[in-house]
Structure formats: structure tokens, C-alpha cells
């Protein structure tokens, strides 16, 4: 549940979600659930050559299983806290 908790902290921040089909969408993180399904608002396609029709979709729901990466804002990440949390999580804490 670590990443679920972690992403909840990022709600309201701008992120870029890269899908496994290479589509990258930037937007404000609206919500996330335990399956890491992601809802974004004010979305923009980062590189519109592959899926030009998406251009400016307003709200979008992305299935967690197709997310490859979530790019985080630099000021949205406290590396030390994340580091400790992942160690605790791996130890079964």
C-alpha cells in the first residue's frame, strides 16, 4: 500500500503519467486508488504525435495496470522519507 499512500500525498500536484503504450499525459493528480488507477484533471498530451486526438482532454481515468511511470514534480518528493518508507515496507512493516 506504500505507493497508494505516497500518491495520495501528491493529489493536487502536476504529474506526468507515461503509459505502457508510450503515451505520456500530464495533468493535475485528482485521485488515486489502491490499484493505482489514476484520475487526472486538465490533462495535456506530452507528445501528441502518436495520439493526436487526445490533445486537450479535460478529465481522464487511467487504469493502474497500464501505467509505466509516473513522473513527479521535484519539489513533491522527499527522498529521505520515501527511502525510509520503502525499507519499512520491504521489511514487512
Amino acid at each position, binding site marked *: 500500500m506504500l505507493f497508494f499512500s505516497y500518491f495520495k500525498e501528491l493529489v493536487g500536484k502536476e504529474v506526468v503519467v507515461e503509459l505502457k503504450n508510450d503515451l505520456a499525459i500530464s495533468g493535475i493528480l485528482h485521485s488515486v486508488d489502491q490499484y493505482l488507477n489514476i484520475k487526472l484533471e486538465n490533462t495535456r498530451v506530452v507528445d501528441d504525435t502518436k495520439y493526436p486526438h487526445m490533445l486537450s*482532454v*479535460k478529465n481522464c481515468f487511467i487504469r493502474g495496470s497500464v501505467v509505466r511511470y509516473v513522473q513527479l514534480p521535484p519539489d513533491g518528493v522527499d527522498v529521505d522519507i520515501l527511502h525510509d518508507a520503502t525499507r519499512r515496507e520491504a521489511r514487512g512493516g
Partner: protein
Amino acid sequence: MALGLSLVTERTEAGAPVVDAESDESIAHIQPDVSIVLGEGPAEGPGTLYVTTRRLVWFSNDDVHKGYAVTFIALTMHAISRDVEAYPEPCIYTQIETGKEDDEFEEDDDAEEPLPAEINGSVSDLSLVEEMRLVPKDPSVLDHLFQVLCDCALLNPDAEVDQEGEADWIFDEDEVLGNGIGAKHENNNVDLNVDLAELLHHDPRFEDAEEEDSDSK
């Protein structure tokens, strides 16, 4: 359940899709007056959209044998599209996982073409459709329809993925040296915390032996 879009020809007497009660499928929402656009194809309709707890099903009002369905597991993304440059009418834009996107070993341009071939304006291979739009006659239903799709998508999580917490993860030197996960503590005869300088210069093992006999010097 399958990936990709499929053709549905069967309907109940009431004109609804036949649901699979065994997999807990039931109709969650019915939206009349919806047209459907598959890939780059033309808008097809008028039709009725049935959102079940497992699938999205669209039936043509004019042709009782024409229907399309996609499982929520295959719906990788859905969104409200109001950008007229993207599509002239407000609609729900969706992307579909076809399972045919792995083009790593395939250099064939046709295979990479996401658009299904069109013959006489109709889509020839539904399983290749990667983008689909649902265009309601009344755009004010879009917000609710978007939410219904979110809710039903939540009912269809993937099968349990192997949690990585059980693998041996190494985080840093500290843990590799024996103070964390994966460290073996049983046969630890060596005290790793001993100062190296101590060992080099004052290792008790190298001290002269205490001799009781004085002949060897």
C-alpha cells in the same frame, strides 16, 4: 476475459446485452442516443450504450445484429473530450488494450498501424481498434457517464499481481554488510564492526606466542 473490442450479435428480448451472471455481470447504466466511433472510422449510430459491471456494450438501434463490446479490463483509459479540434462533438474518448501492441520484433509497418482497415466505411477487424469515442446526442450526460465508467472500472481490478515485497531487495551497503534484510546471522564468526587498523596492527592472532621453552627465537 478477452482484450480488444468484439462484435456482439446477441440481445435479450428487451434489446439489452445478455449478461454473464456467473461472473457477477449486471447492467449498471443505460445511455440511449449514443453514437460510437471506432478508431478513425465514421460515427455509427444511433445506438444505445449499456454499461455493465464487466463490460461496455453498444447496440445499434437500426441493426439488431450490430453491437460492440469491450471489457473494462481492456479499457486502459477513458476521458471526457471537449476539444473540438480533437473531435467536433463532446464525447467520451477511450483507449483499448488489444494485446497486439508489442511490436518489438515486428518491423512491418502495417502491424504498427493502429487503424483498422476500412472497407466501405465499416471497420474490418475490431480486435485492432485502439481508440473509441462515445458521442451522446446530449452532451450534458458526459460527466455522469464518465463517473459511471470510473465506478465500473473499479469493479474490475486485474488478477492479484505478485507483490514485490517478498523478493530480496537490497537498499544499500549497510544492509548488504549484514545489518538488514537478506543478511545471514547464523555462522557469523567474524565481528564486522572491528576497526580495521586494530586488526592490522594489533591483531591478537599475530602476537608472539607465549613460550615456555626458550629455545626457538
